[in-house]
């Protein structure tokens, strides 16, 4: 079973009480392990610690080091239009995800159950598009979207996000639907549901976990993104929150405590989504390798 060369001469099992001196050592080991885990937790929580404690200072207190104040939180909305930016982020995120689902679900259904000529080749090309970073096609993309006059509102950014998210969602849905028995679909179509009915009534209800995975992953990705929002939303009063923060930070004139307060607010939605839907996120990240 194993390639280990140790002869099987060792007598009773380690963790039986017959070997008394091992138990305390193991216990100490457990405590050391626990301490290490705590230390790592402290490091991983460092960003939150910085954001919370820095935001609870006025600019003077921040520069001098000591003190505590709500000032930065009170003045926050006059420096960063938080409400409007959260709204923009929400609009862009939900619209992009909607487009991704609306085009991704039927495509996944088609590539898995309604194969057409060359559908495998098309599917492979689609999957390879997953690998193309936006930066590689940034200039033509920007010029195209500008020429179509889509950078005025949210539409340009929504379409770019949707296009970047679609390959992954198609891949995930196709893989997922392959697990659905053909007979179920056949029966539905024969029963007069039609192709659209079969998709809507049979496939979509089964696909809820896959839909959740795509939604959670894309939400976090789009909410956290900078590049698309920065370039494809031209009106400053339509900026998503991540872009607003980054632009303020790059300007180097905003007070750090206020920037940290804004950062903390911007981080909350994605964190909440993550904590609730952790399971789906893990599934999505390891898609295609853990099955």
């Amino acid at each position, binding site marked *: 079973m194993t390639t280990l060369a140790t002869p099987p001469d060792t007598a009773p099992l380690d963790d039986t009480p017959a070997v008394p001196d091992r138990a305390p050592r193991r216990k100490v080991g457990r405590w050391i392990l626990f301490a290490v*885990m705590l230390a790592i937790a402290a490091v991983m929580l460092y960003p939150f610690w910085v954001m919370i404690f820095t935001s609870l200072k006025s600019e003077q207190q921040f520069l001098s080091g000591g003190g505590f104040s709500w000032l930065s939180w009170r003045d926050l909305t006059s420096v960063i239009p938080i409400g409007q930016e959260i709204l923009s982020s929400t609009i862009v995120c939900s619209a992009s995800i909607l487009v991704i689902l609306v085009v991704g679900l039927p495509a996944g259904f088609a590539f898995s159950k*309604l194969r057409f000529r060359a559908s495998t080749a098309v599917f492979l090309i689609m999957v390879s598009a997953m690998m193309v970073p936006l930066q590689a096609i940034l200039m033509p993309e920007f*010029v195209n979207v500008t020429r179509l006059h889509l950078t005025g509102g949210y539409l340009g950014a929504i379409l770019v996000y949707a296009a970047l998210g679609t390959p992954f969602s198609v891949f995930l849905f196709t893989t997922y639907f392959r697990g659905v028995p053909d007979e179920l679909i056949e029966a539905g179509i024969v029963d007069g549901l039609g*192709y659209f009915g079969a998709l809507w009534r049979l496939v979509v209800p089964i696909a809820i976990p896959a839909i959740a995975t795509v939604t959670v992953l894309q939400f976090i990705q789009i909410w956290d993104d900078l*590049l698309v929002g920065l370039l494809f939303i031209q009106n400053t009063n339509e900026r998503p929150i991540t872009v607003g923060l980054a632009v303020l930070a790059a300007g180097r004139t905003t007070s750090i405590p206020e920037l940290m307060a804004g950062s903390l607010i911007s981080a909350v939605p994605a964190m909440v989504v993550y904590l609730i839907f952790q399971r789906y996120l893990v599934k999505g990240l390891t898609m*295609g390798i853990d099955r």
Partner: protein
Amino acid sequence: MTTNAPRARRLTLRRRRQLAGFAFALPAIALVVGFIGVPIGQAVYYSFTQWDGLTSTWIGWSTWSQAFHNTDLWTALENNAKLLITVPFALGLPLLIAVLLHQRVAGWRIFRSIYFLPTAISWVVLGLVAERFFAYQGTLNSIIHFFGFAHTNTNMLGYESTALTALGITFIFTMIGTNTILFLTGLATLDPTLEEAARIDGAGRWRIFRSITLPHLSRFIQLAFVVTVIALFSALFSLIFVMTGGGPGYSTTTMEFLIYQTGFNQGDFGTAALYGLILFVLTAIVGIVQLRLIGSNE
């Protein structure tokens, strides 16, 4: 017309299914072709032109020869290459953390949630926090002072010699969550009786890790490697934008940031499109490895 109606109907059943399939796939295909496929073609065309975004004039290979004589390009490529040094750390630390989590010490679920939490946060925000960490009055100097070096002060982001290292350290931190998730999933698929059997056979912890755990994780390590390298080539933009703006000088300008700067700060769209193609080729090489990974699984 009426005579071949039955045959036509039989044909339509199969054909209708194919047509339905094509119609269902069409919106996704159109979106991806329009917003990813076409721009790749355009990038190739525009790389042979002088282009400011409005008018383009064909100048053949001279954009290319100029670009390859441009030291900025070589600096950016060199920075990308140097940052590859972070990859072993961005894989090794999460591997260690995943193994620790897998010991299922008391409260490991809570630890797991905490370790993954930064994964949900924007790299813009993490970049802002990292800037605080490395700043003159930041946490790093406090730590150094705490250990007794009261007169030692660092300002890593402020100097050409150290800024890239600071960026690399930040990158390692930002990758910990994702890679730990990958490795932990891998460990969960490991049959615990294998390790148990080895332990009974008298194998030590290290031996078990080397001979059983690591080989089992190889596919997950490969995947994490690809994910990390692709992130390194195409996800540093947010960090660079808020931490250094590519500076001091060009010391933290990577390929993706150079594309942005060349296009939007210098208005040289043609050269930026060409740089994009270079980035495309670099990621394609890594991407092919990943496709083979996914492919070999099906």
